[in-house]
């Protein structure tokens, strides 16, 4: 049944204390409305976001959304200013629908720390991760890390057509669809009969009949051209398919993951620059005092739930409570700042902690 318990006072007090801790380290405090215009978020994340957020309508302002996180309004705020490097902290309620997990809270506190404009990515990644790791240390949580940047580099470096690379890039955050596309580009999936007939027809548009709707005959014709061009292209080789699966399957400690990925990179050199960044981050983390030797790394981590992250990603989990969502999550989202800054992007890394879950787990004392 749905959770009606309000945030308990300890969660609120804990949230304040964590926020003060970030602020005393020099982060500026950020506040924003609970009721936000829905348009930006809907445009960024599409229809799926409606299943996870509360969208309502205002007769004058149009669709509004109960704040699902602080990151988007914070990036908008920062990009409106001069954009000088800065770090921020915030705490407040966020709201998420829990259709698949009605036992989880749909209203809870979030405390965040975000760093904009850091010039040394490895250093900033390590610093942000280190801050969360230090705070959560008393709970003995299981950390998880990954790097979407490696997957992006893998797709960018694929020896195939621009259209195929673009299709794969669109679906990095939808693992099942991504795998289906790889198989299709490799010719491992039978061509559906309707597609075969379309490709074989001399003038497929002849059968189109009455044209209705906004999508024009020209658009249909140009997609048919694109499908024909694609059908004429050499399939992605079986070897490359195996390399992609090998990258996605990497799940090891950071040093071992790096070694495995370096082995794969012999045949997939496109990922080398991303691996250099991974290595630099591991070194920076070691300098920061993180136990990198035992820190887990999963190449596929962060693909399903964190669409705006495009580099380093991390989370902290209570292993004894698999029913709970992650206690903290974060990562790098340079591309989001570029989208919201109309092309003017800046490096951005951050994370959030859920003080309510900290309380559920017995607090930090």
């Amino acid at each position, binding site marked *: 049944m749905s959770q009606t318990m309000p945030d308990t006072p300890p969660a609120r007090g804990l949230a304040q204390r964590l926020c003060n801790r970030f602020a005393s380290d020099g982060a500026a405090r950020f506040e924003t409305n609970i009721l936000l215009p829905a348009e930006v978020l809907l445009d960024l994340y599409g229809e799926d976001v409606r299943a996870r957020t509360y969208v309502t309508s205002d007769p004058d302002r149009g669709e509004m959304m109960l704040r699902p996180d602080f990151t988007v309004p914070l990036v908008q705020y920062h990009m409106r200013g001069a954009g000088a490097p800065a770090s921020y902290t915030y705490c407040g309620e966020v709201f998420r629908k829990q259709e698949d997990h009605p036992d989880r809270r749909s209203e809870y506190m979030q405390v965040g720390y975000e760093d904009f404009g850091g010039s040394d990515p490895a250093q900033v990644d390590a610093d942000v991760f280190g801050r969360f790791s230090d705070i959560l240390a008393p709970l003995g949580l299981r950390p998880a890390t990954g790097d979407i940047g490696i997957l992006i580099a893998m797709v960018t470096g694929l020896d195939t057509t621009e259209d195929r690379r673009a299709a794969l890039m669109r679906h990095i955050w939808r693992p099942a669809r991504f795998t289906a596309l790889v198989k299709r580009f490799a010719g491992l999936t039978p061509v559906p009969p309707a597609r075969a007939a379309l490709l074989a027809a001399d003038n497929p548009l002849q*059968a189109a009949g009455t044209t209705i709707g*906004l999508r024009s005959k020209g658009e249909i014709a140009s997609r048919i051209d694109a499908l024909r061009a694609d059908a004429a292209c050499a399939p992605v080789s079986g070897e490359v398919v195996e390399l992609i699966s090998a990258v996605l399957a990497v799940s090891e400690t950071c040093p071992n993951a790096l070694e495995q990925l370096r082995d794969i990179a012999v045949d997939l050199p496109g990922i080398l620059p991303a691996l250099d960044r991974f290595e630099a981050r591991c070194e920076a983390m070691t300098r920061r005092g993180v136990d990198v030797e035992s820190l887990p790394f999963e190449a596929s981590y962060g693909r399903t739930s964190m669409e705006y992250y495009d580099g380093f990603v991390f989370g902290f989990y209570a292993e004894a409570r698999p029913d709970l969502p992650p206690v903290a999550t974060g990562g790098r989202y340079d591309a989001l700042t570029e989208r919201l800054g109309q092309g003017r992007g800046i490096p951005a890394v951050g994370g959030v902690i859920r003080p309510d879950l900290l309380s559920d787990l017995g607090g930090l004392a």
Partner: protein
Amino acid sequence: MTIKLGVPSKGRLMEKTFDWFSARGVTLSRTGSDREYAGAVEGIEGVDLVLLSAGEIPRELAAGRIHLGVTGTDLIQEKLVQWDQKVEPLEPLGFGHANLIVAVPSCWVDVDTLDDLDGAAAAFRARHGFRMRIATKYHRLVRDYLRRGGVADYQLVDSQGATEGTVKNLTAEAIADITSSGETLRANHLKILQAPPILESQATLFRSRVAQKSDTERDVLRALIDRLGV
């Protein structure tokens, strides 16, 4: 102190429901004037007939205000989160068959599968600057289906009726709606995607898992279920 049975309050769905019950020795009828939503049950004691819009029956079952209800599986699954924890389907009634499907203009000769729909949506968004619009009233079911099918770059627009006309009226590019014969779709120059339907629906007798029952009511419910042979 009665078992409440909710059935659709008008149209073919009501008539067919009455027929189905009467074939099993339970006579349902509307009483009073044509406009009054009151009903009677004969053939078994202790059962009250509640005439409701088919769309409200899922909510009434989930709230426990009726013990049994006849409505479409589409409405149950669209309107109730974790529906199977709130109601139990007792028996499909063999009428009211309809599939919830995605349809696109017939002139889209390049779109036959969900994979095509995703490809066309990507190109459409790049060209027009907004996400491809799909008109429907089944938001949750359609969104879930398209997410599982890996379709991105679309948006749902609400359409509570005459959904087949939205494409011609340029308020949507595609639709997701209930169809039985497909005739309305063809008449509106639309074709069904070659993909498993979002849902195959039919009128079904549901039991509320949450409605409270006294011992007497429990006996009546058992007698009714026995009589219906479900």
